[in-house]
């Protein structure tokens, strides 16, 4: 995806998306190294996996807010968006902490898992709000629309799998095999959006609404 964006000259314009993808690559390499040296069942790998997962989730959350800045760029609302996103992030962290505090020892480990899950759901809601804003403001940039929609698919799949895991713990092994498929969605769809659609490609957004407008 980063290569596609570089080749299309969009690296700086979508800097947050590219930085997130680069972070994904570095984290994957790091995870592989820890896995290789300490083994799958080791505490080091478990720590590295969950801490890096929170890091990536927060990264994706800020990537989403950068998409907000793109949609609302004509309103010059970048500062308000940044302030609002930090406030919401702190709120989610506090809410997760309150939940973890009620459920016994080993707070730190469970706190990061809880933050990650809650942020994914917050991300899903925010993506849905952004999609509604795109339809309302009649945003026509094809690439931006595709980036937002694929992010929505990714967040909803993640939130659904977390919810399923909580509801039916027996499904854990089945769901675990779905994570790599989910992980491929963003790099593939974003790479396609950068490669296939130039920045000036336009689309009529009312054609995309599930309920015809």
């Amino acid at each position: 995806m980063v290569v596609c964006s570089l080749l299309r000259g969009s690296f700086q314009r979508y800097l947050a998306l590219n930085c997130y993808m680069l972070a994904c690559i570095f984290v994957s390499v790091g995870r592989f190294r820890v896995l290789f040296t300490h083994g799958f069942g080791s505490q080091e790998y478990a720590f590295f996996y969950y801490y890096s997962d929170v890091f990536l989730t927060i990264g994706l959350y800020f990537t989403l807010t950068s998409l907000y800045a793109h949609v609302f760029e004509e309103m010059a609302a970048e500062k308000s968006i940044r302030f609002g996103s930090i406030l919401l992030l702190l709120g989610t962290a506090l809410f997760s902490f309150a939940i973890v505090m009620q459920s016994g020892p080993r707070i730190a480990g469970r706190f990061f898992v809880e933050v990650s899950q809650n942020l994914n759901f917050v991300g899903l809601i925010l993506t849905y709000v952004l999609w509604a804003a795109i339809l309302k403001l009649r945003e026509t940039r094809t690439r931006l629309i595709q980036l937002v929609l694929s992010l929505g698919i990714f967040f909803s799949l993640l939130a659904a799998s977390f919810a399923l895991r909580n509801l039916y713990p027996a499904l854990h092994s089945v769901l675990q095999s779905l994570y790599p498929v989910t992980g491929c969605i963003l790099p593939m769809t974003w790479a396609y959006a950068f490669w296939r659609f130039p920045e000036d490609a336009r689309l009529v957004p009312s054609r995309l609404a599930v309920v015809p407008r």
Partner: protein
Amino acid sequence: MIAGIILVCSIVFLLQFFVSYCRSLIAASSKQALSPEVRDVTGIAQSATGEDFARVMQLLRLCPESPEDRSRVQAVGAYFRLLNFVRSTLARIMPALRAWTETERSQCAYFAAVALERRIAFSRDMLAQQMDA
């Protein structure tokens, strides 16, 4: 309880995002005109219908895949199956939904024909490169 609500919300959102994403893929290819050659091969003379989709997909499978369009074709294939499901269940009760699914199915068929056109061009390019080498 909360996990159940989250599950229902995420499935509803997933469906909405998936439908809109597929429609954005279809809309992007709807502006492209089909060549007379592809019209002949697919039998799409004027406008495509939902019934053409299976035939065009069979033709698509005969062409070498280009890495660029593989996932798109799979996504629209899944969307077409979803439309078939809606057509055979909910659309039986709601006539307006039936008309909507028919339009969407025909657009899926047109999308597949455009993908076929691209794959034919891709195959020709590959052949030309091999001839040059």
